[in-house]
């Protein structure tokens, strides 16, 4: 059974997305899995981590016992200040986001569609939503990366022709890391760029609703050195 083969770990998925970050980028990491991106450190690149609460340039998680209760990232985790950090209020923080200063936002999702739509804020038949800053970020960041499991817990595909859930923003996703590989969103749909070790394109297609484009230079998933 394909489902029983080992898949990629969350940290590997986030490492892979983080490898795409470029020097001097302003990076916003969503709550949950995306925060793992900050565990990947490329010493040749300086990144500036921005959090919705107005913290610009925070550092790694604070070691136990060294937490400053006034300094948290978007997920509420205590982080340490980096030299050069600056604080702004919430309106200015989203001025920065809407102003197009964020180079990449990495978010989790329930679904991603081949047209770049994604859904991560509302479960149907349930009132309300946990939108947070996701709509502002998704609409305004220069790139939107998604980190998510390839299928739901009961094995249904999350990589779809069209989203079934209410979307967070239309047509904005550029890159998706799942536990089965790395996918670029092209004008023609999902392109499988890298596959998880032991998984061939046909097996991945089987767990994907949308048709995958399989390029001639398809590679195996790249892990941290």
């Amino acid at each position, binding site marked *: 059974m394909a489902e029983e083969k080992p898949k990629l770990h969350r940290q590997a998925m986030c490492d892979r997305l983080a490898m795409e970050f470029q020097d001097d980028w302003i990076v916003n990491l969503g709550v949950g899995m995306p925060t793992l991106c900050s565990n990947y450190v490329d010493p040749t690149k300086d990144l500036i981590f921005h*959090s919705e609460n107005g913290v610009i340039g925070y550092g790694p998680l604070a070691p136990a016992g060294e937490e400053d209760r006034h300094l*948290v990232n978007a997920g509420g985790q205590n982080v340490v*200040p980096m030299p050069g950090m600056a604080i702004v209020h919430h309106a200015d923080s*989203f001025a920065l986001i809407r102003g197009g200063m964020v180079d990449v936002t990495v978010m989790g999702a329930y679904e991603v569609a081949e047209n770049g739509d994604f859904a991560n804020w*509302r479960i149907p038949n349930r009132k*309300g*939503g946990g939108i947070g800053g996701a709509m502002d*970020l998704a609409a305004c960041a220069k790139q939107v990366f998604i980190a998510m499991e390839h299928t739901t817990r009961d094995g249904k595909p999350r990589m779809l022709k069209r989203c079934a859930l209410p979307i967070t923003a*239309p047509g904005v996703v550029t890159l998706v890391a799942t536990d089965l590989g790395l996918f670029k969103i092209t004008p023609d749909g999902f392109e499988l760029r890298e596959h998880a070790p032991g998984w061939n394109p046909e097996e991945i297609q089987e767990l994907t609703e949308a048709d995958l484009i399989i390029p001639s230079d398809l590679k195996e998933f790249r892990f941290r050195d």
Partner: protein
Amino acid sequence: MKNKIYQTFDEAVADVADGSTFMSPGFSGVGVPRNLLAALHRQGASGLTGISNNCGTLDEKVDVGTLIEAGQVKKMYAAFTSPTHPSQISPFVRMYNEGTIDAETVPQGTLAERIRAAASGIGAFYTPASVGTELAEGKEHRKINGRTYVLEYPLHADYALIRAWRADEFGNLQFRLAQRNFNPIMAMAARVTVVEIEDEIVPVGELDPDKIHVPGVYVNRLVKIPPDGIFD
């Protein structure tokens, strides 16, 4: 100079009337005016409308959820009107599903900007956030320079309950790190701004005018959190 210093949180929120609108800042539990919220809970005003990033958490701490659970709030404007995890059924979520509280889900940046618009006398503004989503349905859209925006309106309030680090007696405020979040814009947007101070209320003239996050003209009432108050 008018005396803005109140001795107790209870006095500072004593005049909040039934049906008032209040703003409650804080993000991930930092910068939440817990002492003032506790006092407003004790005070018992009902039929309130709340403006806050979320609708209360599941920890045991006092927050906007404390008022919600007590039935004091009839409507919330918030960026989180459902739990981030389906397992987290807060009092708000239960009441919202039962229909005993109303809510409007507002993208966080739009929430901040609507508060800032109220503070700034802006009648309405166009934002790109939420375009193409369910939250933009029924809202006025406009294409400006090739990009589509939705029209959003200010969020005013009668009271802002604020948590700051330091103040002078005139009400000039300073915040520490991520404590700042929604605090300054809410302090500037409300008709009456009530502030709980973590560190110190210093005499007028001791704060550097270049290092003030909220000018004292916006602040009406100050309460120093006593040693037995809620700091975290």
